[in-house]
C-alpha cells in the first residue's frame, strides 16, 4: 500500500511519514500544494493524507483538481479549521474523511486504514483469504492461527494482494504500490518477495499468471 502525505510543516510531515511507514505503508511526501498535486496526479496512491493549509496551492484546490481530473483515490484531509463549514467544504470538494488538528497519530492511522480498506471494498478490519488472516489494526498476519513474521516489504506486498484478492495484479502495479517514489526499483525484487511470501504462507496461495502478473486466492481443492 502506497500513500502520499502532503503537509507543509516539516516536523508534522516527518511524524506522519514515520508513523505511517511503521504501520506498513510506502509513503511519499510533498511539502506544498503544487508538488502534492503533481504527485497525486501522476502516481497511483492507495490513499492521500492532505493538509488544507498549504503554500503555493491550497489543499482544497488540490483536491478539487484531482477530482475534476478523475483521480478517485481516497483522501483524508487534515485541517486546523475545524468548524463544520470547513469540514463540509472539504467533504464537498471530494474528501472522504477529515481529521482536525491537533490530532493523535492513532486517529490518522485508523482513518487511513479505514479509507484504504473501504476503497478496496472490505467492510471489516480483518481480511482473510483461505488460511491467511490479516489484522489491519494490529498489522499482524497469521496462517492457520500461527503468527507469520514478515518484513515491511513482504507485508506491503501481501497486504496489497489481500486487499485486491482474486484480481490479477501486474508486476508494474505491484511495484508502484510497494515502493516510495524515489526508491531504486527493480521489478526482479518483486519476484524475490513473492517467492519469500510463498514460503511463508503456502506456495499455492499466490498464482503466477504468465505475462500478466500475480493473483492471490484461496487454493481450490482438486
Amino acid at each position: 500500500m502506497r500513500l502520499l502525505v502532503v503537509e507543509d510543516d516539516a516536523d508534522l510531515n516527518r511524524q506522519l511519514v514515520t508513523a505511517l511507514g511503521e504501520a506498513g505503508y510506502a509513503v511519499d511526501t510533498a511539502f506544498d500544494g503544487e508538488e502534492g498535486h503533481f504527485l497525486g496526479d501522476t502516481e497511483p496512491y492507495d490513499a492521500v493524507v492532505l493538509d488544507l493549509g498549504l503554500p503555493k496551492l491550497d489543499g482544497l484546490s488540490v483536491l478539487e483538481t484531482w477530482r475534476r481530473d478523475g483521480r478517485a483515490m481516497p483522501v483524508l484531509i487534515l485541517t486546523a479549521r475545524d468548524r463544520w463549514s470547513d469540514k463540509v467544504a472539504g467533504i464537498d470538494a471530494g474528501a472522504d474523511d477529515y481529521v482536525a488538528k491537533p490530532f493523535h497519530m492513532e486517529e490518522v492511522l485508523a482513518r487511513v486504514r479505514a479509507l484504504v480498506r473501504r476503497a478496496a471494498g472490505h467492510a471489516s478490519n480483518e481480511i482473510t483469504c483461505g488460511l491467511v488472516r490479516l489484522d489491519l489494526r494490529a498489522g499482524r498476519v497469521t496462517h492457520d492461527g500461527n503468527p507469520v513474521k514478515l518484513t515491511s516489504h513482504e507485508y506491503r506486498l501481501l497486504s496489497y494482494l489481500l486487499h485486491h484478492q482474486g484480481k490479477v495484479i501486474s508486476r508494474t502495479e505491484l511495484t508502484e504500490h510497494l515502493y516510495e517514489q524515489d526508491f531504486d526499483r527493480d521489478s526482479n525484487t518483486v519476484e524475490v518477495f513473492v517467492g519469500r511470501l510463498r514460503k511463508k504462507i503456502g506456495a499455492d496461495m499466490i498464482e503466477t499468471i504468465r505475462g500478466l502478473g500475480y493473483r492471490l486466492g484461496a487454493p481450490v481443492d482438486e
Partner: protein
Amino acid sequence: MVTAWAHPLTSEPVQGGKPAGAGRKPRSLSGRLVVVAAVWSVLALAVAGFILVGLYQAASERAFDAQLDVYVKSILAEMVPDPAAGESAPVREPKGVGEPRFSLPLSGWYWTVAEAANGEKIRFASLSLVGDPLDVEPLGSAENRSSFGTGPGNEEVRVRQQRIGLGSAEFIITVAAETAGFRADVRDFANQVVLTLVVIGAGLVGAVFLQVRVGLRPLVRLRTSLGEVRRGEADEIDENLPVELAPLAVELNALIHSNREIVERSRTHVGNLAHGLKTPLSVISNEARTAAGPFADKVGEQAEIMSTQIQHHLERARMAAQRRVIGVSCEVEPILSRLTRAMSKIYRERDVELEGAMPDGLRFRGEQQDLEELAGNLLDNACKWANSRVVVHVRQLQHGEATRELFELAVEDDGPGLSQEERREAVKRGRRLDETVPGTGLGLSIVADLAGLYGGRLELDRAEIGGLRARLILPSV
C-alpha cells in the same frame, strides 16, 4: 470576557413608531408637520374672517348712513320756505319725506329737526315718535355725526345728525332708523364667511396631510430598505433616494459594509491563529507520545491542556465576533442537505439511515457558518450514537409561542441517549474557561452557547425513537 458573550442577543429594534397618545406631543415627523400647518391655517383663517366681517360691517354702515343722508336731504328740501313768500318766510314743517315708516307710530324710523341756536330744542318731529323725544346726544359744535342709540320702542337705532344752515337760522336734522335689518344682514354674512373659511381650512389641512405623506414617502422607503437589510433580504440599502436622504443611505451602506468587513477580518485572524497554533501542537503531542519517560508524559499532558484551551478560546472569540453582524440570513434547507450529504459520507460504514422533513424557503437569521456549526454538531452526535436511524425535523414555530419569528430544528436518534443528569450537564452554558474537561465531549455546550448568542436555545430530551432528541430554537426571517 466571560460576560461579553454570556448574554443572549436580545437587542431587537423597536418595531415601528407607536401612534402618539391623545393630548401628547406627536412623536412623528408627519404629525408635527400636520399640526403646525393646521394651527397656522386656523389662525390665519380666523384673522381673515374677523377682518372680512369687520370690513363688511363698516361698508354696510356707510351704505346705511348714505341712505339716512338721503332722508336728511329730503327733510331739508321740505323745510325750505316757499320762495314766493319772501325772504323772511318761516321754515315749513316737513311732511311725508317719502318714507311711510316715518308716519307709523314707533316704527323704528324717526326724525327730528332741532334749532341749533336754542339749546337744540326740538322744532319738528316725525309722527312715528308719537310725541316722545328721540334720546340722542346733542351734536354740540360738530357738523355731523353717526352713532348708535336707543329708540323710544327700546330698539337699537342708527342715528345720523347733520347741521344745516337755512337762511339765517341753523338747524340740526336727526334721522334714526332701526338696525335690526342691518344687523341681520351682517350676521348672515358672518355666518357665510365662517362656513366658507371652515371648508377652506379643512381643505388646507387635508392638503398638508397629503403633502406630508407624499413628501415623507422616501423616509418610509428608507426604513423598509433598512429592514430588508436587517432581515438579510437585501445586501444594501437602495440609494435611489431624494438628495436630502441619499447621503444618509450611502453612509448606512458604508457602515454595513465596514461591519461585514470587520467581522470577516476578525474571523480570518482567528482562523490563522488556529492554524498557526494547532500544527505545532500536533507536532509536540505526537512527539511526546512517541517518546517515553516522565518528561514526555508531562509535555504530552500539557500539550493536551493547551489544545483544549485553544479550542475553547477560539470558539469564544469566534462567537464574540458574530453578534454585531446585521442583515445576514441564509436558507436552512440547502445547508441541512449539504450537512446530511457530508454525514452520510463520513459515517457511511455506520449504516445509519438519515431521514428528515423541512419546509422550503425557511431562512435562519444569522451566519451560514453558525447554522452549519449548530446543525453539524447535532447531526454528528446523532450519527455517532444512533443504532440505525437519525430523524431531522425542521418547522416554523407559530407566532403565539414567541414575539419574534422562530424555527425549530430537532435531531433525534435511536441510540443510547443521555440520562437526565447528563442532559443537564451537557447544555450548561458559559462553561468556565479554565475547565479542562470539556463536558460530555459532545460539543453541546458550544451549541448551547452559540444558540444563546442568537437569542435561541438548545433543549435535550428523550426521542420518540429511543435515543436523544436535541431541539434547537433559532430566529428565522
